[in-house]
């Protein structure tokens, strides 16, 4: 019998905790069935998280998980348009009708779900995103034209965390949508996730002694995100996240990173998220989300 992992009806970085709780209720080697029948909406963070979960199961040597696709046709079509089902089919057995739609990057999907395994993938992601990013950031969100370059830089650095630290491949996706409940404005969201070693294990050898009893997922995130430390002794390391924070501070953007059982957030003035949350349900690897809001008064 399969263990059912519930996919939240409205799946974003907040409802992700329900998903993580359900996913971590047993070992990764359980026979699992991801139940997305009731799904009504998923953010890029959620799509990347579902792929990451399926990848973690495969990497743990568990049986191929099942995945029941959403009942709502518009949801199935949107997920197909993001390229999600194409990648998921390589990791899970899909149950239900999947629309045959090519990924579309000329709409709100600025970057379809894209695997990131090596430096070449980061080049491709950065190369592909720039035209669409300029259209949305400058055209709709009212950011200065030069913000596009910083956006691509932030995307590049977030993806490089996978290549440099995860020890396995990961995924990235970028969408634009209206953030009605929390902000009442349009946003562009970058989601990057992997099922790799996570921040704690990546930094353990060089940082755990410094933190002593406090060492854990939360302390590792604090070291990387607040203190800009890296597992490498090279003094030039650790600038990627620092660069992302610098870019976000200029455009009132939000950065959240969840790894293991902790989540850290660089909270912009428009949000009331908790800066640090610990003792969450365990989830493999690291999940990064970057949110760039429309500037106040922008037409988007």
């Amino acid at each position, binding site marked *: 019998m399969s263990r059912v992992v519930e996919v939240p009806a409205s799946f974003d970085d907040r409802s992700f905790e329900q998903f993580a709780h359900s996913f971590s209720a047993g070992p990764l080697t359980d026979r699992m069935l991801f139940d997305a029948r009731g799904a009504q909406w998923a953010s890029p963070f959620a799509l990347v998280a579902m792929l990451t979960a399926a990848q973690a199961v495969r990497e743990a040597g568990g049986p191929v998980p099942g995945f029941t696709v959403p009942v709502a046709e518009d949801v199935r079509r949107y997920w197909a348009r993001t390229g999600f089902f194409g990648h998921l089919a390589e990791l899970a057995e899909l149950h239900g009708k999947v629309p045959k739609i090519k990924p579309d990057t000329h709409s709100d999907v600025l970057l379809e779900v894209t695997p990131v395994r090596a430096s*070449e993938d980061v*080049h491709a992601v950065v190369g592909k995103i720039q035209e669409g990013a300029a259209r949305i950031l400058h055209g709709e969100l009212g950011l200065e034209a030069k913000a596009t*370059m*910083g956006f691509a*830089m932030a995307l590049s650095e977030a993806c490089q965390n996978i290549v440099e630290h995860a020890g396995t491949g990961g995924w990235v996706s970028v969408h634009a949508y209206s953030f009605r409940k929390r902000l009442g404005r349009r946003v562009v969201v970058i989601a990057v996730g992997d099922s790799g070693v996570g921040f704690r294990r990546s930094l353990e050898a060089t940082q755990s002694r410094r933190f002593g009893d406090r060492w854990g997922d939360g302390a590792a995130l604090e070291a990387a995100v607040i203190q800009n430390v890296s597992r490498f002794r090279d003094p030039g390391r650790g*600038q990627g996240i620092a*660069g992302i924070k610098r870019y976000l501070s200029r455009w009132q953007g939000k950065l959240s990173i969840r790894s293991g059982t902790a989540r850290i957030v660089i909270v912009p003035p428009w949000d009331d998220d908790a800066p640090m949350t610990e003792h969450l349900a365990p989830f493999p690897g690291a999940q990064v989300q970057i949110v760039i809001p429309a500037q106040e008064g922008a037409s988007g």
Partner: protein
Amino acid sequence: MTQTIRVERLLRESVQTPYCDLVTRSTGRAVRTSIQQALVAGGASLAMLDFSEVGLVDFSCADEIIAKLLLDPPGETYLVLQGLREEQLEAIEHVLEHHDIAVLVCDSPAGAARPVGRVSPDLRTAFFTLQAEGPTTADGLALQTGWTLSRTTEVLETMARLRLIRADSGSYAVPQPAA
């Protein structure tokens, strides 16, 4: 002798990519190695690293190329960056400040160089005085700026260590492209 190195060309030669962006550490390492080889082969006293055809420059790649070239300078060559757009320069400045170093940047092909990065007001004053008045000694610069000799010497030595100026037998000068 002045050597001009087109960074975008080295990027295409070093990394199999259809894009002209300087992103990722591995790309940075490959491009830095190519630049080092070109500098050794060229043997010039001054090298202009031309970024005019380059797209995006991210922090990691800027660190691998610019910071590491400056921290471990190849031979006696002085480096000047040119053809940088505002956002590219911003990423490079971020990296330079992280390492507490500086580099010379030319904003236009015919323009004069300026120091960018961790540059104190004293260092800036001394640099532009040398650039305007020409080569001089520590005594000469102390007279021009009205500073004490020890303050002047300290600033000049810092600039020489950062390879923003040449120091030769007690005389200091801003590196100039050959006419």
